């Protein structure tokens, strides 16, 4: 139990350090008046022609979905590692079946061109 409390305490200490540094910078740094030109999105001096943040390639969604599937797969392997000795051959077969199903998923995705980048 103490170990998990200690992780929480570390997060608090880290937050104090990071937050303190960022706050200090906000206090020390100058803050000149803002102009309309200065607040415009920085595109190397050109005037932006499109409002930002509306459209971007759908491919990033595909990668995100793949990430969710495979990261959960890998995380499911970790309990198997921890209990490898108890579950033995039965657990091995189960884990391999699980791994194979998802590997077929990866192969399918590969063949359908989901991993290609245009």
């Amino acid at each position: 139990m103490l170990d998990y409390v200690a992780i929480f305490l570390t997060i608090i200490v880290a937050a104090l350090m990071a937050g303190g540094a960022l706050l200090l910078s906000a206090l020390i740094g100058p803050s000149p008046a803002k102009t309309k030109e200065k607040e415009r999105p920085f595109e190397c001096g050109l005037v932006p022609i499109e409002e930002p943040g509306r459209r971007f390639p759908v491919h990033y969604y595909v990668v995100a979905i793949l990430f969710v599937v495979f990261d959960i797969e890998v995380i499911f392997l970790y309990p198997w590692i921890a209990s490898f000795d108890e579950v033995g051959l039965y657990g091995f077969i189960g884990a391999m079946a699980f791994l194979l199903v998802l590997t077929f998923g990866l192969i399918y995705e590969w063949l359908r061109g989901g991993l290609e980048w245009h």
Partner: protein
Amino acid sequence: MWIELLTKVLIAGAVLTGILSFGGVLTWVERKQSALMQDRIGANRASILGFRLLGLFHIMTDGIKMFAKEEFIPRTDHRVLFLLAPFIAWLFSLAAFAVIPFSPELTVAGYQVTLQVANPEIGLLVAFAMMGMAIYGVVLGGWASNNNYALLGSMRATAQMISYEVALAAAAVGPLLIYRTLNMQEIVIRQGQLYNGWLPLWGIVLQPLAFLLFLVAGAAETKRVPFDLPEGESEIIGFNLEYSSMRFGAFMFTDFIEKILVACLTTTIFLGGWQVPWLADDGFRLGGALALELGPMVVWLLRLAAFGIKVCALIYVLMLVRWTLPRFRYDQLMSFGWKFLLPLAFLNIIVTAAVVLVLNL
């Protein structure tokens, strides 16, 4: 109870301060080392009273400059997220060091002394979780910047980091199947055995393929060359384009901290952590016989130093790679992760599991 908690806070403070200082030194090492490889002199101008100390004062001047710059906040719908993003990245990359086993436990006058803040049974998962949380900084930073280039940069960076996160976690499964624990101290202790009485059975000896996969995925996860598209300092505009002052510094520092984190994780899983070859609890042993007797304090210090040396060596290798290889193209980067690293890691898992099961290791 309160004494214990206070001790934990003190250890956490000491570890995090050490990591931050080491990160600061790394900014200087990076500059000097690149200068060395390119036959330049490198940073050497900052001085105090005429003393230059090989340009070491540049660490301080860099910091002062970061603090003293204007803190620019663009006109954006997500002001809070914009302010929060560097904080999140910095916070969670630091918090991951809670579970890193810098040293073994030492009992001094009835007290357990160790430089590891927390040693939970799922230590490695905590480290991976914190690394995953740090990605939010990149996502939110680009999203809240109200800038097309920053948004695209953050999308690229996010896709890269989550792709290699999978490969990283999958590569670690191989050696973990041999240790069969997620407790960080246990992982290190399991690597203390010797094969035939002389070869230390570290993870790199048992799982050389997994070591390479882990190191490459770790380099990509922390945006090192040749996977540094999210940064691409002078050529490609990245997610941190609208950031200035220490908020930009937070992103830059997070990178250095994550480099240390990946080096620490690789050391723990593959390079035997704090293990010194042939050093047992009571001194150096060769062929089972005590060759040199040492006190527990000396052994503890030697092991702490061993961890530091291994981490420094790994970081130096990553720095050598930086100035040796050119950068990947983005499609090459993504297909390398999904079509090469991940299948190889899966193959490694299957073979390792079968061998461990048959040989009953």
